């Protein structure tokens, strides 16, 4: 029996089916009457295709009606909300709340929050934290970026903390910018730091041009003025470590020979994880090949290699997962039908 929690997190290496499994879980929860928000942080945005959304929907919460999924658990219509992460939208909302548009009116910030600008993981933490705070949903289902980018996502709060390190305060003081911090007595140490910064900036300017250094400092000052919003997201990290807050699913796929990557990912993630972890083995084919015993040598080999991959994944389950669940491969061509079918699998394994 799996307990229901306010957050459910799906992680795994690329292409294993994190998005389809998290979407199907959202369907199951919604069909049983829960208020659900499904968020995808993966910049590949496969969710868009599954839920018939457009690129324009990125950043806005979209309500998905059950009629697009033909296989559905129960026959009562339901709906759930879905969100394709957009770093730009997250930053814009932050600026609205803090009334700090001018802080982000900077060409560096504008470039960085573009869809592939590189701030995805950090802005994602802020977005999820914001949605949690709204308390509008019974469950937030989170589809995370693949492989080590998931670890990047988990490390975001540390990066935020490091970014707003005291050293930056020193930079601002040196530059005479007002950032609203209490002034500290300029001891020997800070004088040393200051001379270092002066040198550092002159080197940086030599390589990047003066314009960049100016813009960069403005961007940092802008971020710094809004630092409370960033730092608040750090609370989310602590939430994640609480067993009563989240369920974790490590998704693997029979289609791939990636057990070692999945293991590495698990070992890295375990630093942030608690014991409510489940191993999901996707695209399982054993149930289709179980009673097939070909005589032909080549077909024997084909059967053996296909089943062998699945058996190797099953050996992972003794690694302290609460349990492991097989999801059969689905050949349905329409993405919506596909997730609808997987939702039925969820209700078989974890009835609500």
């Amino acid at each position, binding site marked *: 029996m799996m307990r229901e929690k306010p957050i459910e997190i799906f992680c795994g*290496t*690329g*292409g*294993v089916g994190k998005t389809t499994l998290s979407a199907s879980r959202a369907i199951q929860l919604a069909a049983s009457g829960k208020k659900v928000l499904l968020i995808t942080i*993966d*910049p*590949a*945005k*496969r969710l868009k*295709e599954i839920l018939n959304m457009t690129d324009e929907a990125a950043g806005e919460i979209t309500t998905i009606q059950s009629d697009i999924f033909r296989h559905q658990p129960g026959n009562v219509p339901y709906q759930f909300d879905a969100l394709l992460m957009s770093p730009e939208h997250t930053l814009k909302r932050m600026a609205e709340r803090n009334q700090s548009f001018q802080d982000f009116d900077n*060409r*560096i910030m504008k*470039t*960085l929050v*573009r869809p*592939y*600008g*590189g*701030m995805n993981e*950090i802005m994602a933490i802020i977005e999820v934290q914001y949605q949690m705070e709204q308390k509008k949903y019974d469950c937030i289902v989170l589809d995370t*970026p*693949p*492989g*080590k*980018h998931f670890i*990047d996502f988990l490390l975001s709060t540390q*990066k935020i903390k*490091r*970014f707003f*390190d005291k*050293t930056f305060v020193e*930079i601002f003081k040196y530059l005479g910018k007002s950032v609203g911090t209490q002034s500290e007595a300029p001891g020997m140490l800070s004088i040393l730091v200051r001379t270092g*910064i002066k040198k*550092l900036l002159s*080197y*940086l300017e*030599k*390589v*990047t*041009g*003066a*314009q*960049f250094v100016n*813009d960069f400092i403005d961007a940092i000052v802008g971020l710094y003025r809004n630092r409370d919003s960033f730092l608040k997201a750090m609370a989310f990290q602590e939430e994640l470590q609480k067993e009563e807050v989240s369920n974790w699913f490590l998704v693997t796929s029979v*289609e*791939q020979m*990636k057990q070692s*990557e999945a293991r*590495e990912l698990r070992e890295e993630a375990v630093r942030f994880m608690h014991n409510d972890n489940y191993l999901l083995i996707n695209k399982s084919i054993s149930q*289709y*090949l179980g009673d*097939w015993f070909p005589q032909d040598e*080549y*077909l024997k*080999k*084909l059967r*053996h*290699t296909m089943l062998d991959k699945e058996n190797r994944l099953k050996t992972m389950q003794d690694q302290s997962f609460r349990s492991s669940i097989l999801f059969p491969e689905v*050949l349905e*061509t329409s993405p919506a039908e596909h997730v609808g079918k997987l939702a039925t699998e969820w209700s078989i394994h974890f009835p609500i």
Partner: protein
Amino acid sequence: MSARLIVFTGKGGVGKTTLSLAQTLSLKESGKNVLYNNFDQFPNYGLCDRLRIPHLDLELEESAVEYMAQKLGSHMIAGWIMKTPFFSSLLHMLPGLGHIIIMGHLINRLEKDPTLTIVMDSPSSGHAMTMFESTHNFKKIFGSGMLFNDLNRMQDFLFSGDKVSVNVVTLPTEMAIHEASELKSAFLGFGLQDVKIVMNESLPSIPEMTPERVALLPEFLSKKYQIESQIIESFKSEITNTFPHLVNESMAESITELAKYFGGSK
């Protein structure tokens, strides 16, 4: 093949690593001066060494120090800059900056040695977009200066002529092919000239899969075979190359077998 930088990208799990290693092996066996690079991801150098595949390993922070050292004429100053919390936070906050530093490093190597070819096992779709888009983004950010000029040089290499060949690897499902086409158009939009879609793990492309054997497949595999055949037929104008589903025990065997497809002997 005239491309100097051969890139394999696509969604996770489509076989980018297997195909890029097979491509490297095939070029090496034909006597080319070639290196495999896995662009700052989980490395599998044991496999490279077992197959005698030469590889170029770049670590982000070292690459960044080397780059700064070149610009400032001092390795010591560059090392010091990189160690400051200021700069190291900057690199960690902005993965795109790291991408262009490594990409710049690869292009430098190619420009220094005109006989060299590099096969890049690139990050998967979304992050490959960040990698190519970053050259445009950081040009906007810098506006002028040494880095701006270097970015122009990088873009010359990447986006003009036939020096770069990008392979978007896809599995034989309709949804996967749609995603691959979307990725291909995005790459063309960034300015890349030569972008191909290649299909991997296809059942109908297995040479051993004779009609007699197809008739012996169980219902599930037979349906999968039919679906894949239809997909190959309807997307044949978009797919440049197709690689079969392999039944080898190890990745090393698969790489050796796939190398024959690149070499033209299959």
